[in-house]
């Protein structure tokens, strides 16, 4: 990345002085940072520290793409937003904090969902893509768009106490598809909303992403390209695993079959399912369940969440955490009409699939889970 002939004001010289006195950065490196254009996908748990530290470091142009608004449940980890920002578009809140931190940064906001229709256009004006998305579809989209644009893709993802970080660059090493050619089927891997996330963990991983981004801009140090860093915050252990480019990768292998962006919702929704029958999970909506209960229909309600979740709220009935279901399945009667629920309907769908697979045919999944019940049937119920 060529440094432009950027002149710094005295105020900037003072602001960046701790960089300028290091030979690994110095004036030349700081000029590269000022000339750099970095796009953050998501202003959430990862995007917050990424954007704040890159702004503080003096990255000249920061793009932020996010369609979401700030929610109270974000504030435990998304430190770029505050209580007063609840309800505001995340890009608006984030841009305000970045400008307050460093007015020398040009902020470009995209209040939109990254999609196959806009990704290549948005990526065009940036040099490095930093992924702080929270779903598989956006991650495959970001990877493919970065590879097709010939740009490095700084990756991290988090779940509960664990994180993964690396740098993908299809032109010089592996891409995300070399590591995971296909996403898990819906419901196989819980989201942070389902499984939880230690609030500081995206901070840790986001700072690693910011570090890798700065190194890429400076052209210094050893990047994580070709190395997957695993972070276990509970044990505070860091492991490094060697990654290889997959010669059969459909995107960057020897005979690629992906030459443009695809429908990522479909890709993440269909691939990986074992058989069509397994994918069919009979469901009942919260409103329909309420109606059936009011009509006096005999139903068994089965909660498959974890004990900590049941302490917060629940419906009368059986409680068997998903992980115990195989051992305790005998506690259920196959003759009963059973409705299985979890927080949002993902784990319970897996429980229904399991139960139907072992002969329980009269089981249905509560779509939207207990959260849907609380939102649409019983607003007095605490949510988590």
């Amino acid at each position: 990345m060529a440094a432009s002939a950027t002149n710094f004001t005295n105020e900037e010289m003072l602001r960046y002085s701790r960089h300028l006195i290091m030979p690994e950065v110095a004036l030349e490196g700081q000029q590269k940072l000022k000339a750099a254009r970095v796009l953050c996908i998501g202003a959430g748990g990862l995007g917050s520290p990424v954007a704040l530290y890159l702004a503080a470091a003096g990255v000249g142009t920061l793009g932020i793409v996010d369609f979401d608004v700030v929610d109270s449940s974000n504030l435990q980890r998304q430190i770029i937003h505050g209580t007063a920002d609840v309800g505001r578009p995340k890009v608006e809140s984030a841009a305000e904090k970045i400008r307050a931190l460093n007015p020398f940064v040009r902020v470009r906001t995209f209040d939109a969902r990254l999609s196959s229709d806009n990704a290549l256009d948005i990526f065009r004006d940036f040099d490095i893509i930093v992924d702080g998305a929270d779903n598989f579809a956006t991650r495959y989209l970001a990877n493919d768009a970065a590879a097709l644009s010939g740009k490095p893709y700084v990756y991290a993802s988090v779940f509960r106490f664990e994180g993964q970080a690396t740098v993908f660059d299809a032109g010089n090493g592996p891409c995300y598809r070399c590591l995971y050619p296909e996403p898990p089927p819906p419901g196989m891997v819980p989201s942070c909303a389902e499984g939880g996330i230690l609030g500081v963990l995206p901070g840790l991983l986001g700072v690693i992403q910011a570090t890798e981004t700065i190194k890429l801009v400076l052209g210094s140090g050893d990047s994580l390209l070709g190395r997957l860093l695993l972070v276990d915050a509970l044990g505070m252990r860091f492991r490094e695993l060697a990654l290889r480019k997959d010669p059969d990768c459909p995107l960057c292998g020897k005979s690629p079959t992906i030459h443009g962006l695809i429908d990522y919702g479909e890709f993440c929704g269909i691939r990986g399912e074992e058989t069509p029958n397994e994918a069919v999970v009979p469901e009942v909506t919260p409103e329909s369940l309420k109606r059936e209960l009011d009509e006096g229909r005999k139903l068994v309600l089965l909660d498959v969440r974890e004990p900590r979740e049941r302490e917060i709220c629940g419906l009368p009935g059986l409680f068997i955490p998903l992980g115990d279901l195989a051992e305790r399945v005998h506690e259920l009667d196959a003759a009963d009409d059973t409705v299985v629920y979890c927080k949002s309907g993902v784990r319970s769908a897996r429980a229904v699939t399991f139960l139907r697979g072992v002969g329980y045919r009269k089981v249905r999944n509560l779509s939207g889970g207990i959260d849907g019940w609380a939102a649409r049937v019983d607003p007095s119920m605490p949510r988590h």
Partner: protein
Amino acid sequence: MIRVILPAHLSTLAREKGELEVEVGEPVTQRAILDALEERYPTLRGTIRDRVTWRRRPYVRFFACGRDLSLESPDAPLPEAITTGAEPFLVIGAIAGG
């Protein structure tokens, strides 16, 4: 005993915390470890390998001693450090949280 580290969501399914240990007879291979895991933790069946083809899921990878063994034969003997328990057999899974 063979040490195994699972991704968090699979540890939850197995009702275990942290590292697991499974007994595996000689020769110690990927297939032998996964068979032992699934025997002891039936809820893991279908999560790491396809229940029909027994092939590794594309969103899961196997590592040992820092090396990616995912594309190697499931019947290839694993490094001695795994068989002696000096190093764990790592199952890594795709996560998307951000």
